């Protein structure tokens, strides 16, 4: 990959990766750090990576870095730690996409990531599996369960009757 291609990768995929990480961990400073680290890593091995494979490489590297951060940070918890009574409150009158994103925050990190990769980036199950290190079957299961959880959230918050 040339320097020009590297800069193209920054321009084209920087925002995508940032959104993916930001929505996964809900911390703009950490998301910025993770994306910076990812591009720093890309720059170190810029000559070894083909431009055609760089997007998946970036997502994969950013995802793994994010998982490291999540493991180190006990503040980030999954849906299983939330009390349902507070979980489903105050959603009336909100925009569906906003509510969905709030519901997404309640999902476990892996489920959240695979759904984001699917919806934001349109990756197929195999590509998501390559990025996250999961099997295709695991990816499918996580996505389907995630969708069910999101739907249940909408129903319980009265956004959907």
């Amino acid at each position, binding site marked *: 990959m040339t320097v020009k291609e590297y800069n193209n990768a920054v321009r084209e995929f*920087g*925002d995508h990766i940032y959104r993916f990480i930001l929505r996964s961990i809900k911390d703009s400073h950490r998301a910025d750090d993770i*994306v*910076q680290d990812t591009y720093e890593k890309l*720059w170190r091995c810029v000559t070894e990576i083909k431009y055609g494979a760089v997007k998946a490489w970036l997502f994969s590297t950013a995802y793994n870095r994010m998982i490291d951060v999540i493991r180190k940070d006990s503040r980030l918890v999954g849906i299983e730690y939330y009390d349902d009574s507070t979980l489903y409150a105050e959603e009336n009158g909100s925009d569906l996409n906003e509510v969905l994103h709030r519901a997404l925050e309640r999902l476990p990190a892996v489920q959240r990531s695979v*759904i984001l990769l699917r919806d934001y980036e349109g990756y197929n199950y195999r590509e998501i599996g390559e990025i996250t290190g999961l099997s295709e079957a695991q990816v499918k299961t996580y*996505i389907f369960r995630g*969708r*069910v959880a999101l739907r249940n959230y909408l129903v319980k918050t009265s956004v959907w009757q």
Partner: protein
Amino acid sequence: MDFPRLTPPDDRMPSDRRLYRRPEELTDDQFDMLAAAWAEGALTGEALAELESVMTASPGRRDRAGSFRNIRLVPDNESWPGMRSAFRLSPALTAFRRSAIPALLAVAAMVVIIIYGPAGAKLKTINAGRTVTGNAMTVAEIPASAPIIAVKRITVTPVQPVPVEQTPVAEAREEAAEASEVIRVKPLALTYSHVSASSVAPAVNPVMTPISIRDIQPARTLQEEKNWMFRSMSFLAGAVTGKEKEVNGYMIANGCITGINNILGWNMELEQVSNKSGEPVAVTFSSSLLSFTKPLNKNTP
């Protein structure tokens, strides 16, 4: 040698019919998982046919499955704030940048020196205590120090005095020896297009009719232009902040450096060092390549 082999008996489960299930018997949770897969387009063949049969049999479940199609996240327009710092320069550009840094630093240093030099101090004096008006400042109102363009020994006689205008600058002349005359001319007077030779000549050549320097009213001079810019900046700063804002040399130099930083992504800094009473005593410039501190004179703003 043959070993005996067991042959399974043909036993039949008596109630196996009770274990069979129809698609309509799927629980809601099971149906939801299938519906989520269906909405994703991941169901094919028999699985798809079974789900469709359930949906056909139950309109409620059809709606339930249909709701999964609406569960799609749409990305917002968040943009990565640190993108700019991730860009890299090509080797050629890097080399250019390295060679350009000293040149631009020199320019920045020159700006600082000019602004903090005697000319800047005088301009500050001019701006202090003035209200902003639309009138352009006249030449004679600018008490900037003027270069000495000629020193001529002349004999001053009561018969033909030299009526040179008494300006603040001219006070220095009083200390000069009687027999010598120091002739100072405003910088603008050196602009040939605006000033005729006669405007500077009288004192040099007493025979010519003397003309006061006040008589010179150029339409646009360098000094006038400078003043106008200072006043405008001061006015704009006041308009933005809602306060009387006095523009000084530090503000302008700092603005230049901030502009260079913004354009080129550098990290140069200019700081004003103040004493305990809040009066500026020095200016510190720092960058990755060069750092220096310049003490300010007492009369420097």
